[in-house]
């Protein structure tokens, strides 16, 4: 096992007294601190051992919840709402703008591992629909120009 993964798991699990009741916040926190924004199989195994629970329980939880991922993802997660209100408000332009600006399709990650573009269900921004969530922040009433600016800002942020 990689010592840095062990160390990360320990630092987070210790905060939660190694109590498996806290599996959700533990996984969310470890994912946030992990490279590629996900819970790897190896990390899942380490967490299971630390909390003295089965690997399948960790895997079950990781694959059940939308906010957790068992697959590597980009540094920035862009989630386009694909629920009722955003569909009524024709989110197809918004989808196309993001796909074209990023050069990827929904469901994909840019080759530089910077952005992952996915669909998501309603995140309660229907008053500014069609809306998009970039990491934890919500943006609505978008135009192609604004999409361009948002992506440029995020691209610049990590460099």
């Amino acid at each position, binding site marked *: 096992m990689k010592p840095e993964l062990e160390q990360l798991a320990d630092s987070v699990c210790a905060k939660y007294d190694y109590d498996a009741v806290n599996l959700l916040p533990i996984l969310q926190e470890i994912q946030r601190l992990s490279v590629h924004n996900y819970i790897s199989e190896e990390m899942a195994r380490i967490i299971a051992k630390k909390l003295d629970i089965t690997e399948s329980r960790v895997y079950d939880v990781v694959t059940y919840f*939308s906010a*957790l991922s068992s697959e590597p993802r980009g540094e920035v997660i862009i989630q386009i709402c694909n629920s*009722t*209100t955003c*569909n009524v408000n024709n989110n197809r332009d918004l989808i196309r703008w993001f796909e074209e600006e990023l050069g990827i399709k929904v469901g994909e990650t840019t080759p530089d591992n910077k952005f992952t573009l996915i669909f998501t269900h*309603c995140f309660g921004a229907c008053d500014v629909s069609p809306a998009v969530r970039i990491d934890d922040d919500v943006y609505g009433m978008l135009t192609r120009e604004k999409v361009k600016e948002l992506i440029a800002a995020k691209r610049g942020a990590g460099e």
Partner: protein
Amino acid sequence: MKQVHFITELFDKYDGRDLLAYLNAGGFTALKKLLDTGSEAVLAEIDASGLQGRGGAAYPTGKKLRQARAEKAARKFVVCNADEGEPGTFKDRELLKRNIYQVIEGMVIAGICTQSQEGIIYVREEYTNMHDEIRSAIAECYKHNYLGKGVLGSPYNFDLKLFSGAGSYVCGEGFAMCESMEGKSGRPRSKPPYVKQEGFLRLPTLVINTETLSTIVSIIKHGADSFRRYGTEKSPGTKLISISGKVNRPGVYEIPFGLTIREIINDLAGGIRNGKKGHFVQIGGASGGILPERLWDTRYTYEDLAKAGLSVGSGAIVVADEDNSLLDYLKVVQDFFRHESCGKCTPCREGNRQLRFIFERITNGTATAADYANLEIVLDVMGKASLCGSGKTEVVPFRTAQRYFPELFMTKETYAAKKAVV
């Protein structure tokens, strides 16, 4: 009287995050009233108000609190359900953002009334950008003894913390919520026992909606009569609605029960955008019913909506205009449920899989009479035999769509034959 400010009285009256400003605006007077007069008086007031749970089930809140109070255990929990996941709903977001202290006050009151000492605000993951502010509001309340040991010098203790969901619609259901708080995937349990008896950690748990908590505070503060000034006999009081879609002014509005859907759309939300004609609304979230434009004079009350085959649900109203296709809309609804079905019970898991195939064919025009017959069977089984409310109520949008737009759910030949008979 279109828009009112009973629950939202303090919206924009103070900086929603500042405890002192909340106190200056009359905050925590409901809690003080409770400490002065005792739980029984407060519960009687809530009974008299006729308040029904605003999470969607519309269970009488006074009764719910009394049942929670009757449970005996060394540890009991109150969970504020701020996991609003019904598409088109964003009213709890406003309550958390603009008046979090009223939600906290409601939690302390619910805790004392039900003799529970531990509270959790279960906030959906999608609202992560508000989590820190909610946590700091909780910290402020601890600092000034509105939370913690001996609340305001009384013999009551009440602890409160925030729990973040992780993105799952079904976790808005009581048991699924408890499971997720226990570090498991959010799958509902079989009942009985009920959440109120064996919920979080198999201990008595009161799960109560964010809006219900906020309303309790206003009722205690102003009295049941002032609440009943609004609404109808069977739907007393006010309701927060989230209106979105093809309207000019989407947003959250507090309305007295009894306005018509048309009044809500035209007078509050500024009418349909670009002068288009209305087509239908979906009321109450993804599991809510579809109401065609010709019936928009229906009053927004529990009783009137029930007559039309709908319910208030989460308070969401999604408005579609003539450019929106109902079948495409239903496909989006179905896709949502297919994704969110937890997979535990067969009717919901497999039913959603079959619905997907059928809807694929309905929307691309290749559905046969057998597809429409199977649609009937699948919806019937899902509505009757699903384990939790999610599977059971998922059929509502389809059933109401069938009722009001029957021509969309039969082959052209059948439709022509039926028309010929009429």
